[in-house]
């Protein structure tokens, strides 16, 4: 317990212009965990992820990476340690899968020193890990939603960072592709990556996370292993939704069964 986690925030205030989302927020990401951040819309979970990935500079406090403020890193050095799969990435039209995945190599390249072999290797590994190696020569615009999301994950993997942040990676995918992608993340986690994801589906979060952070109104309400965090009381407190929590018959993890207005006794 004496070791500090690689990535944490210390009393950060996160704001867009003057609109404060979170204040005095201290969060630690356990090393080697698959951390999932959950909470209702506008609770500040994506904002926290943006701060962790240095897309948003805190207006007070700091994000600490490996003992140093993340803002003190050269941007490329930080990008060799933390990868991000953003929601807003754009595929240039006509780009091939291999070319797009290769764009993730940017932080490893400099103007005068380019490691072509290392780049090709990283790109090939990332495509194999995400199962898009057969699509390497295809144009990204022509792929299905599920395939495209895998390609974006491959781009983030090609960055070869020990920590990978995922901003709502499963949104807009059908259930089969969601599970497929979450299985992929679980594989990556098992292979040694620290993952931090924002997810909407509590049951998916409870199944796949090793560490869960529940947020409401910009603050952390509870954190810990899913079994400890996902309780009927907590779900009602955080989401304002009465529910029943049972053991998932397949995985044994907590399963949230909502009681909507029509199903309250």
């Amino acid at each position, binding site marked *: 317990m004496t070791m500090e986690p690689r990535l944490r925030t210390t009393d950060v205030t996160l704001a867009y212009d003057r609109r404060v989302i979170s204040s005095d927020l201290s969060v630690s990401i356990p090393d080697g965990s698959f951390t999932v951040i959950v909470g209702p819309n506008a609770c500040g979970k994506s904002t926290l992820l943006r701060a962790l990935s240095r897309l948003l500079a805190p207006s007070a406090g700091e994000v600490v990476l490996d003992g140093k403020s993340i803002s003190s890193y050269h941007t490329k050095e930080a990008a060799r340690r933390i990868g991000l799969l953003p929601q807003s*990435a754009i595929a240039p039209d006509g780009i091939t899968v*291999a070319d797009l995945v290769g764009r993730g190599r940017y932080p490893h390249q400099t103007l005068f020193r380019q490691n072509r072999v290392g780049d090709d290797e990283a790109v090939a590994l990332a495509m194999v890990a995400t199962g898009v190696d057969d699509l390497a020569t295809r144009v990204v615009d022509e792929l299905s939603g599920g395939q495209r999301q895998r390609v974006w994950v491959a781009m983030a993997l090609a960055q070869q960072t020990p920590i990978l942040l995922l901003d709502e990676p499963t949104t807009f995918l059908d259930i089969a592709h969601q599970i497929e992608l979450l299985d992929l993340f679980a594989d990556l986690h098992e292979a040694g990556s620290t993952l931090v994801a924002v997810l909407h589906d509590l049951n998916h979060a409870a199944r796949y996370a090793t560490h869960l952070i529940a947020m409401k109104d910009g603050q952390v309400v509870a954190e810990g292993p899913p079994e400890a965090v996902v309780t009927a009381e907590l779900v009602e407190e955080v989401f304002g939704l009465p529910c029943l929590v049972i053991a998932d018959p397949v995985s044994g993890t907590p399963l949230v069964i909502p009681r909507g207005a029509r199903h309250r006794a």
Partner: protein
Amino acid sequence: MTATMRGARGEVIRRPRRALAVTIALAVTALVLAFVALGLGDYPLDPLEVVRAAFASDGSFATTIVLDWRLPRVLVALLFGAALGLSGALFQSLTRNPLGSPDIIGFSTGSYTGALLVITVLGTGYVSTALGALIGGMLTALLVYLLAYRQGMQGFRLIIVGIAVTAMLQSFNIWLLLRSSTEVAMTASIWGAGSLSLVGWPQAWPSLIAFAILFPAALLLTRPLRQLELGDEAARAHGLRVEGSRLVILIVGVALIAVVTATAGPIAFVALAAPQVAKRLTASAGLPLVPAALVGAVLLLVADQLAQHVLPGSVPVGVVTIVVGGAYLIWLLVREAKGRL
């Protein structure tokens, strides 16, 4: 797995191979056209005579014609075309829009305003006109950038603001012309049409020096440009300093078009069309810089030769490009509108 990986590498290599082939073909085309152009005129020479005239330093009449009279104009047409193509590629990539070209979003018009102010208020010296155009273009770019800036820069906003500023500057330009004497207005109008006919070695040198800095600078921006195409968040996640890179791209792009406009007046269409033509020829993702420059060079050289030798009278090259460009712009607008609806 090896097979697919080989497939992956094969493709990674094959696309640049097409791009490379197209680039070489364009460069050869430009070179051949340049030799043909050097032979065209009232004193026609075939390419062999051109080569002989160029390398025989015997002070013959042919040498004077080729080296002193025709070479600066041909060279300037090639290099200005390349600069316009590069500038267009930089801006269209930055705004992620084929309409986000410096001639559409007001920088040429701003240069013209600068030049007009110098011509109508200070007199008509060549150097001061060029300086006025340079400063006018830069100030317009700064104005458009500041008006469009809101927590970062967004391409579409830049285009809209640019079109609005262009409209205002155009009416200001007309007012300037109306209140000046006929003679001054004539001079200003000729400059404003965009012409290479007054360009000789003395006018060419300053821009050649500027290009020696600006062309390599533009090529160094290739990788940041390719990152910006992915969206700001992805680019930032990859460690790019997004705002800083964008500002540098903007400065180099404006400088390229300002140098051209300062020397030759506003030349429309080349910056707009060259990057899109190059993209289609090379089938590349994003707008390729070197092919865009080469397409621009070929386009402007051909347009200038048409203006000189095919069209009756001496038509400024800007008029040729604007006629061809108008047609292209209509096609582009119709296609864009279809995409949006």
